[in-house]
């Protein structure tokens, strides 16, 4: 009796697993352009997207810090994402991507242009290639092959 029961349980368990996998198969990314690179950050980490904000520079800070800004009473650090990842190309930062920062004030990544919102299948995400030209590899967590280009997925923890 017992043995039979256990096997039934086993069968049940595996069914559950399959279901779970079935449910969680895509991650939503907000994509944006840094020069010619299409980059993405998981949508769940993004608080909002903002234009036209006044940035107060903080002299003596690192190169990639553009300064600070006032987001509804919170002091948000503004980072030039292109500089942060050592993008070889020169870009003109225009849009603020406000990122949630657990327990602390949010941070803003400034980028050039926002792309589409993409649903990326979980299992199609790959490790970054050995060499990446024109951008610093250490901040790239994964890549995803789109029909006409590659999506670079950033490791937000490393960026912050």
């Amino acid at each position, binding site marked *: 009796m017992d043995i039979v029961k256990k096997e039934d349980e086993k069968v049940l368990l595996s069914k559950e697993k399959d279901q779970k996998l079935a449910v969680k198969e895509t991650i939503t990314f907000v994509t944006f352009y840094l020069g010619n690179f299409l980059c993405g950050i998981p949508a769940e980490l993004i608080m909002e997207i903002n234009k036209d904000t*006044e940035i*107060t*520079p*903080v*002299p*003596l*800070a*690192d190169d990639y*810090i553009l300064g*600070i*800004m*006032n987001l*509804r*009473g*919170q*002091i948000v*650090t503004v980072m030039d994402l292109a500089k942060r990842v050592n993008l070889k190309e020169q870009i003109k930062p225009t849009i603020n991507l406000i990122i949630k920062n657990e327990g*602390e*004030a949010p*941070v803003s990544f400034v980028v050039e242009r926002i792309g589409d919102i993409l649903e990326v299948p979980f299992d199609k995400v790959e490790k970054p290639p050995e060499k990446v030209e024109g951008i610093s590899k250490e901040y790239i967590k994964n890549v995803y092959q789109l029909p006409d280009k590659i999506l670079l997925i950033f490791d937000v923890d490393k960026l912050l």
Partner: protein
Amino acid sequence: MVFDEDILQDFLVEAKEAITNLEEGFLELEKDKENLEVIRSLFRSMHSLKGASGFFGFKSLESIAHFSEDILSKIRDGLLKPEEDIIDMLLKAVDWIKFIVQHLETQKEEPIDDNLLEFLVSLSNFTEKLKKRIEGKEEPMQKASQEPSQETTQEPNAQEPTEEVPQEVEKVEVKEETDKEEEEKKKEEEPKAVAEKAVAERVVSEKEKKEIPQTATPHVELTETHIKVDVKLLDTLMNLAGELVLARNRVVQLAQKILDDDLSRSVQALSMITTEIQETIMKTRMQPIGMVFNKFPRIVRDLAKSLGKKVNLHLEGTETELDRSIIESIKDPLTHLVRNAIDHGIEPPELRVQMGKREEGTLYLRAYQEGGQVVIEIEDDGRGIDVEKIRKKAVEKGFLTLEEAQRARESDLLQLIFKPGFSTAEKVTQVSGRGVGMDVVKTNIEKLGGTIEINTIYGKGTTVRIKIPLTLAIIPALIVTSHGWRYAIPQVNLKELVSIDPEKDLLKVGDTEFYRLRGEIIPVLKLTEILKQGSRDGVSKDGLSKNLVILTTGERVLGLLVDEILNSEEIVVKPLGKWFKDIPVYSGATIMGDGALALILDVVGLSKYIGLSVEEVEKRHDMKGVTIKTSKEETYFLLLFDVGPDRLALPIALISRLDKVKAEELQIVGGKEVILYEEKVVPVIRLENYLPLQGLPYQDQYTVLFFTERDKTCAILCSAVVDTFETTLEVEEGLYNHPGILGHKIIDGKTVLFIDIYKVIEMYDPEWFIVKIKEEEIHVKRILLAEDSPFFRNMMKNYLSAMGFEVVCVENGREALEKLNIDPHFDLIITDIEMPEMDGFELLKELRANPQFSKLPVIVVTALAGEDIKKKVFELGANGYEVKLQRDQVLERINQLLS
């Protein structure tokens, strides 16, 4: 009786707490009748309630508590079981207690209520009954069988249990039924006891009968005057208040353009209300530290008991206010420190007596505000910390090499306690846990932006001092601009504002610029240069800064040149993110009225740019290695100047003024060379007349260094000022052995002579320094001078000898002690603080611990003044604290102590 409002309030708070405890406890007890812990706790609550109410003379309350306590003690001792009727009665007692407390709160005196009196009587009788129950316990069965009939006629109050039984039926298990039966049986015994009592009881029980149809006990809701609020909610409120202020400001701006009376009035009302809202919300977050401290009497009592120690706790400064979030965060660290103090600090009573201390150890928990920070001290008079043990442990565990450990000073060794993995507690006690504690304590404190330090005297006690900045600060600040961007300077650092012409008023000496402020020479920084910032609108604005803000770090004064000075405002300090932590010039940011951001400048950080505050920088960074500060590390600002081909140096602090004179302005009056300076006749000194220098060639213009003591000024002539130089005062002695020359040093490839200006002036005019005619001393006073820097050692020896003292010099604390051991006849000791092998603090401790020298006057001299150090120095038993270069004050203090 009229009571102090505060004491009554405390009592009421305590009473309410006790009531809550009691209610919960009784209910718990009903479920778990054997729970001894709860019983004990209930007893304690009732007992203290009794005591407190007795103190105030609240007789009814005292009585209720007395009877209840009695019952509880019997339960606790196992003489009674907490049966239903007992618990009911006790709960009724609690209800009445509530009633009385509520009345006390509003009317400040006990209620006079018939029902209350009846209850008191019934409670008293109930207690009697219980006594009988205990006595009669040996013969329950017998009586039970004999008295079924009596029950019905004489025991109307037996109705009570029967009435209640139906209620209890729901909860009943098999056990309770039998209990109920037993109860009834027991009740039956009672009338049997004494006939009179039965009559009395009948009377009483009839009264009770009357009571039952009416409300048995008053139901009272005690109102809470305080509620708990989630801190996040307060945070949100704060932010909203800030935004409200911004919105209000915009409305005000716009309304000013529209001339409408009604609108103006409404806007003004809006404005006032907004300000009030913001201020009130700010206040909600500040809480007195007493909230945390008040938990400690209990903790200390329990802890002391469990460890077999006797501890007396003193709380001071409980009204000191802190931001709520900080109060939450320091609870744990404080608890750990208190535990440590009791566990490792205070000795067992027998040991204390043996050592000649009082049996009871004393523990102080102190809080006070000091200069923008809140200081919390945990002080005990226990056994102190064995620094030598730490020294050994440090080497054993590999934290320091043997050499480093030898040379390390006490303060450095004590800091090691905070390193993870460093625990010298031999027995890891249950109570305070492993040394995991101290490093966690430090991390937690540092998270709040605070600092922690330990001071100890072996055998006497330990003090742990925590300093936490008031982060949620609204500070008044001055708003200035640099290249169009706004910056805020905290008003606490502000001394003066001066409008200057940078071309004319600033003295450039080498790389640094100086400004003369009423005789004082102050280094000046240009904000735009420090920030290396480009202009906001692209136009270069160099040279337009005309406003000098004179700032102080408490120890040093400096000037900051800014573009514009806007206004003074109260700003809220908001912290900057981690990317800005390492930039010393900012201490935060703030949101201005119009929504724009302004960075808040940190004056101590700014002073770094002049290299003034080396010590303060060191304080900020965690000391990875153990550094020994001797004269090698203390740096001073020197003025390098040329007299002909020779180069000389003087500490800038000694120079009161710097100026240029034309050769023709020099005159000879009365045989002495003088100049007329600011309508005064100032004697001129040519150094080559007293020192082996080649001398000044004729120049059209000379630079003069003014030296002022009291009201006398003299001027030293030099060819030119070369530079200012920051360096240590390590000089080489011996080569230029001449009075007036303290030593030499090679700077930038050139030999520079360090001058003893006091000696030179004395040589020029021996009468210069003498103010009074000294009486002939039969006994020449002997001074022991401990100073490792040859520069200062020689300088001070010189001016002390000149005053007629016999001066013996040593280079550090250890040598001083050795000297004293061989030759104890000294009248005074002057000691530096920073010395190798044994610093001034340790020397002081050693001196005061030795009965032979405990009364010997000691003056501590230092290069830079500092309140912290001053306090510590006096705590350790010094008699004086002076700055080395202020010869006048040192001498005055010496005279004061020796007379």
